């Protein structure tokens, strides 16, 4: 009965969607739907009931209105590069893909801002303004493919967010289709607009507060001068201590990235580099030339004082690019080390790096699985890659347990379960590690204000009985209560 109802609703929705966006932009063929089963978290999949590819804000609004009227859940999708299952659909739900909305609508250099459709890639913004000496600061490693809509939804960061901040520090305004299909303009062109910071809470809400159909983001002039070095250490701890020392010296680098031996080996397998050390620390400074030069000398001194075996300074843009290639390839190269891997995204206070890295090494030994570490050391955002063999069932299980133990370790040290990849489905059941019942209840009320009917990317971000069972103390408000028709008291 329920199944027939779902089929009927999806059928009705498909019909209405075809009228809204045109028949070719509505996908219902199972083979086509398979492309939309998962995002970058490929071990969690669900084939959606329908995929709709609108081209304008009005079309998105009309499709969402139809979903709302029919009670069909929906999820927005950018490039599907998310790493926490955020864009994973529901079987009885709809994917609203924004791939057709990829126009840069306006470049306003005097006011340092660019207006884009949500499907524009992160890198495309920088490419559009680079000839004029500007760039868009948030630089996730996935910047060639990930979209600005996905970046807003995840509050994406990158290697340079240590100095420049995250998406939320650069987004100025957005047009958003709300869960009932109404269109809202959040944020403002001019600073200090009155009212609640709705844009601020939408950013990082993982697609649960509405669908961004247009965004205005700020751009920055390219820094005058950049210096980059890579320092090699005989222990991971020395690398970690060096990070704390640089920050304590009052220096705010543009980026501080670290790789351990295994990550270095992975990168070596796919690039022509000769790095060989227990840990490699990449430090980049940017800004006015004289400031960068004096601080860069201090950084090199600190590396040496912490027994760096070698400090290599990039002598040219090509050498700088080579250092970054090594860093950025480590992720993809992990595939060379093992048949499969899981990425975690925990954050710790950066002064605790040496202890936590030791803790991860101990866990790795205990579980008998290798862990490669390549991470944003400057802001304490770890990316441990847990290597395993997907063909060995025990390893699949063990690797998941090890990954969760690492997350728990981060929380124990006063950190967070996620620094940039988001909670999604992957970490929804880990939320109670960080947040108690009242915290989660308050989060749920915020969500309920944006999406009273629970249709906008449900089962993400917060633990639900469907995903995790009951969470003690967390009172999910029933839509009936929310509508004021009933009360728990």
């Amino acid at each position, binding site marked *: 009965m329920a199944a027939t109802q779902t089929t009927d609703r999806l059928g009705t929705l498909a019909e209405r969607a075809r009228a809204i966006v045109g028949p070719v932009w509505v996908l219902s063929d199972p083979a086509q739907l398979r492309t939309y089963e998962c995002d970058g978290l490929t071990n969690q999949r669900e084939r959606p009931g329908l995929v709709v590819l609108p081209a304008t804000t009005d079309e998105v609004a009309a499709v969402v209105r139809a979903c709302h009227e029919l009670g069909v859940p929906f999820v927005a999708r950018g490039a599907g590069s998310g790493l926490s299952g955020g864009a994973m659909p529901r079987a009885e739900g709809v994917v609203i893909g924004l791939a057709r909305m990829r126009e840069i609508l306006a470049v306003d250099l005097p006011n340092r801002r660019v207006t884009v459709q949500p499907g524009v890639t992160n890198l495309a913004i920088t490419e559009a303004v680079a000839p004029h000496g500007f760039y868009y600061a948030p630089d996730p490693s996935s910047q060639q493919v990930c979209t600005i809509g996905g970046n807003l939804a995840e*509050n994406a960061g990158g290697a340079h967010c240590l100095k420049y901040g995250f998406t*939320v*520090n650069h987004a100025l305004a957005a047009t958003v289709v*709300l869960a009932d299909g109404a*269109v809202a*303009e*959040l944020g403002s*062109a*001019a*600073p*200090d*607009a*009155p*009212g*609640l*910071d*709705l844009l*601020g*809470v939408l*950013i990082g809400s993982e697609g649960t507060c509405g669908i961004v159909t247009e965004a205005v983001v700020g751009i920055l002039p390219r*820094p*005058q001068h950049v210096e980059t070095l890579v320092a090699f250490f005989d222990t991971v701890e020395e690398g970690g201590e060096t990070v*704390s020392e640089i*920050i*304590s010296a*009052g220096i*705010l680098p543009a980026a501080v990235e670290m790789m351990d031996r295994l990550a270095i080996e992975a990168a070596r397998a796919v690039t022509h580099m000769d790095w060989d050390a227990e840990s490699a620390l990449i430090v980049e400074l940017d800004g*006015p030339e*004289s*400031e960068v*030069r*004096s*601080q860069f000398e201090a950084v090199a001194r600190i590396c040496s004082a912490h027994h760096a075996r070698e400090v290599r300074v990039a002598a040219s843009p090509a050498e700088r690019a080579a250092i970054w290639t090594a860093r950025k390839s480590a992720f993809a190269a992990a595939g060379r080390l093992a048949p499969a891997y899981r990425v975690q995204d925990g*954050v*710790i*206070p*950066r*002064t605790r790096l040496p202890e936590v890295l030791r803790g991860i090494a101990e866990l790795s030994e205990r579980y008998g699985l290798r862990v490669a570490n390549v991470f944003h050391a400057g*802001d*304490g955002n770890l990316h441990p890659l847990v290597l395993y063999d997907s063909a060995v069932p025990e390893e699949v299980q063990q690797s998941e347990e090890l990954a969760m133990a690492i997350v728990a370790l981060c929380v124990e040290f*006063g*950190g*967070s379960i996620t*620094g940039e*990849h*988001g909670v999604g489905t992957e970490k929804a059941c880990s*939320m109670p590690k*960080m*947040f108690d019942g*009242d*915290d989660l*209840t*308050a*989060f749920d*009320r*915020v*969500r*309920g*204000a*944006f999406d009273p009917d629970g249709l906008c990317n449900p089962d993400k971000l917060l633990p639900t009985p469907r995903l995790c069972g009951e969470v003690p103390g967390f009172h999910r408000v029933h839509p009936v209560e929310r509508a004021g028709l009933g009360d728990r008291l």
Partner: protein
Amino acid sequence: MGLVEDLAADLGPDRVRPGGPDDAIGGRVPQAVAEPLSPAAVALVLARAGRDGLAVRVRGGGTKQAWSAPPARLDVVLSTRALHRLVDHAPGDMTCVAEAGMPLAALQVAISDVTTHRQRLMLDPPGGAGATLGGVLATAAAGPRRVRYGTPRDLVIGARYVTGDGLAAKTGGRVVKNVAGYDVAKLLIGSHGSLAVITEVALKLHPLPDAARTVVLREPDPDRAAAFCDAVRGAPVTPALVEAAWPEGLVLVRVESTAEGAAAQVERLRDLGPIQELDEPAADALAADLAGRAWAGTGPVLAVGVVPDRLPGLLRAAAAAGATLVVRAPVCAGELGLPDDDPERAARVVGAVRALGGSVQLRRGGEALRALVHDEPGPAVRRLEAALKDGLDPHGVLAGAAR
């Protein structure tokens, strides 16, 4: 039993007293002033308010109550004064956690032991020493340094708060990077106490620079002054302050960097206009004067903001209205002090800023001016704001208004 007795039974007799004339907000004297010692005690006050249908206004230092609309009803002033501890300071992590009633000035002293670490919370809102962290957040107050370091939304990494119906909750954390859960702090910042009582704040700190150098440009022509500000924005300099003061026709730029860096930056600024360098005492005195200048008279004060290419228009609008304007040039947000209560003058300047596509908020002034400045959002935003109010303060006990 009266309200004071009821609250005393909940909190202890020394935490409650009857309200007096000094406690009045917008002319209303509360029946009681409660000074809870803990988030749990804050929740007790709010729970009673919910049961008894009371209106509660949060008070920090009491310096910015006039920034938002006066309460229509007022039964209890909930003072955060007793929540004033520094909870944690991790100098190596450049973060700290403090209770919301801690005065900003006290926090700056507590975290800046110059012998061991040179760091600071880079927030310098107007209004003096009494302002508390909770009040600064609730009003989204920021000062000249926002040019380089941003506003509370850029510096807050976590918060604890008590919702109107008494849930003691937290958002964010203590680390500088974190995307777990909704960023409820963004909602609390600028909420003027309308959604929840902030009880604790986690903040990002910044190193104090080695050296600062300050220059001024005197340029009475709005276009040329704005062009100078624009050139500063595009130059390889890292100013902490860029204050354009009108009608005086003065632009103050302070660069902060290493000693060599600051010296080199002053040379770059010389290429941009006929600047003069000030010695440190003169620079500090002028910077302090500019920060408070819009407030110096007794007339209304407005917070105004425009996009950068409208800066000349904003300077002209201020001059035409006979107003005193200080703008943080790169972000083009500032404060505008009117010389008197003339409603026509106020209407003219508000109209002019709006015509530039700018934003206006009341910082000081009467209710007629507040009504004039009031900016009604579109239906979708209005509904969202109302739904968030209902969600976090379901019984409507918090007598604050975000607009």
